[in-house]
């Protein structure tokens, strides 16, 4: 039982971390039909800048803010300079975002270093406490709570505010809301920066969770985020949240039993879902071309 609860908290923490990354990916695709292959690059930049600021200022919260701002800033530059010229051209979009991914990854190696960097948890979040016989690691609980807060906030913004209404309407029918006089470009930029900021946040949070960050985390977590959005379906926050939890938990249980194959299992799940139910478990958007 203790083992089960420990694994479950691990799984939830991983799941929430991936959710933060995948939420942006899912929203961006849902609204603009852009699958951002550079999302992991934004994540890695958030992780590096956030950790650097945290190590130099000593304040983890400042580090988090720095990570989010880094993500948003990169998102702004990317959307304006690189994504906007190729809206509507799928082939160019896919090719160019992958190019951005390479550049972001190489820039990390050039600016920081290609070697792994340590990222300890701040003192107020390090260590663990016992409840009954079960040991809870504080930092994991922190990630889970942060993830749920973001999930609730996002869902609130999307369902209860005017902005969310526009975004949801945009997901359903872009042309119609443009015809109603909404400047869709501004909405695109907003959603892209929101997603990029979440990726940055997720990156900073990863640091103390994994204890070490490497330039390879971008690609690694991007693959997990892809698995999550494919299972959850594009454009649905709740779907992304649920599937992130499923993937996180499955990962934790499988990695405990058979650590060798946990990544392979993720990939197989994703392939199976894409083949059997390509719109995802909760999504409405078709993934088949017809």
């Amino acid at each position, binding site marked *: 039982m203790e083992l089960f609860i420990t694994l479950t908290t691990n799984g939830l923490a991983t799941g929430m971390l991936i959710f933060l990354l995948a939420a942006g990916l899912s929203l961006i*695709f849902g609204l603009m*039909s852009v*699958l951002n*292959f550079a999302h992991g690059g934004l994540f890695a930049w958030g992780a590096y800048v956030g950790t650097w600021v945290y190590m130099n200022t000593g304040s983890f919260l400042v580090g988090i803010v720095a990570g989010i701002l880094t993500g948003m800033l990169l998102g702004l530059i990317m959307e304006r300079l*690189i994504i906007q*010229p*190729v809206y509507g051209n*799928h*082939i*160019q979009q*896919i*090719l*160019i975002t*992958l*190019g*951005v991914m*390479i*550049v972001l990854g*190489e*820039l990390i*190696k*050039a600016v920081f270093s290609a070697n792994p960097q340590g990222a300890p948890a701040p003192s107020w979040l390090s260590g663990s406490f016992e409840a009954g016989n079960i040991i809870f690691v504080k930092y994991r609980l922190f990630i889970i709570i942060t993830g749920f807060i973001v999930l609730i906030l996002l869902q609130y913004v999307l369902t209860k505010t005017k902005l969310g209404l526009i975004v949801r309407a945009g997901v359903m029918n872009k042309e119609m809301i443009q015809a109603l006089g909404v400047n869709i470009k501004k909405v695109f930029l907003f959603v892209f920066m929101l997603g990029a900021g979440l990726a940055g946040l997720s990156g900073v949070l990863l640091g103390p969770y994994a204890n070490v960050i490497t330039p390879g985390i971008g*690609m690694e977590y991007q*693959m997990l985020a*892809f*698995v999550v959005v*494919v299972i959850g379906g594009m454009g649905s926050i709740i779907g992304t949240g649920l599937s992130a939890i499923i993937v996180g938990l499955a990962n934790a249980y499988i990695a405990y039993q058979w650590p*060798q*194959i946990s*990544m*392979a299992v993720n*990939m*197989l799940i*994703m*392939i199976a879902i*894409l*083949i059997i139910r*390509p719109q995802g478990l909760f999504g409405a958007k*078709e*993934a*088949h*071309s017809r």
Partner: protein
Amino acid sequence: MNTGLPLNQPKRRISVHHLSYLILILLLLLVPLFFKESNSSLIIISNIAIMAVFAMSYDLLLGYTGIISFGHVMFFGIGAYTVGIFMKKFDYTWLYLFEALITVVIITATLSLLLGALTLRLKAHFFAMLTLAVAELFAVIGNKWRSVTNGADGFSFRVPDIFRDRLIFAYVAIIFMILIFFALRQFTLSPVGRILQGIRENEERMEALGYHILSYKIISFIVAGFIAGLAGMMYGIGTRFVSVPSVLGVDLTLDALLITIVGGVGTLIGAILGAGIIEVVSQMLQSFAKTYPIFERWLLFFGLAYILIVLFFPYGIVGTMRMVWEKRRYRRRGSKS
């Protein structure tokens, strides 16, 4: 991306074409002779030829059919690993080399048929994502299945002695490239090739005309996978060493992508030209790295160049040149009439 040839070509141009191809082949065959003293140059030349084949196979998907696969490296890796395993576990003879070839053909064809049949129905984004995932899966298997692949450390093996001579191998690689070039050229000019280009231009229209899109896409995927496997085999024979990062890493797919984009999508010559440029420039940048450490990140410069090319020259070198050429021809024809 209309790069198709005009339908009514005058006969004279075709013979000019043939002549220029002949000259090009002769020039290509002369190249190794200039460098026969330098082993490292010969290795670069063989690499260019092999990467050109890999990129041509990629271009068949990206440029001729309009399919984006981010997992092309898996076929390359299968080719390289099959040669390595056959040479190491059995014997380094011609017989086993031939058996390795048959095995590569069977594995790549089966894999691409299965994968294509299951996934080519997907929209471009999902297909790109899925192929990236499958290729990563192959890399993970390669890393974990150490008894066969020896993971990231890789293993070296021996090949029939004739391939050990760098000059001979450079010739083998160049002839291999020329053969594949003409085979693929024939394929793209064949009725099937025309249909593939039709699919690239307008999928709905081709379907309305009664073509079964999926089967044609699968054909393209199989041919591309099979040729990538051959390129991998040649790579294995040339380096006599395979490891997961060197033959199954995502960066190889990126190389193919870069070469295709730089040279020009939808042009086979572009792949050869692009392979030459990318290989030579990367060697140059790496040699600068000794004085300027920033050039250790040479991929960064390629990435930036790649983004700029996708944004501003989506047709690449050959494609852009061809467009300028055509424009001039039309203008001349216009002024005459």
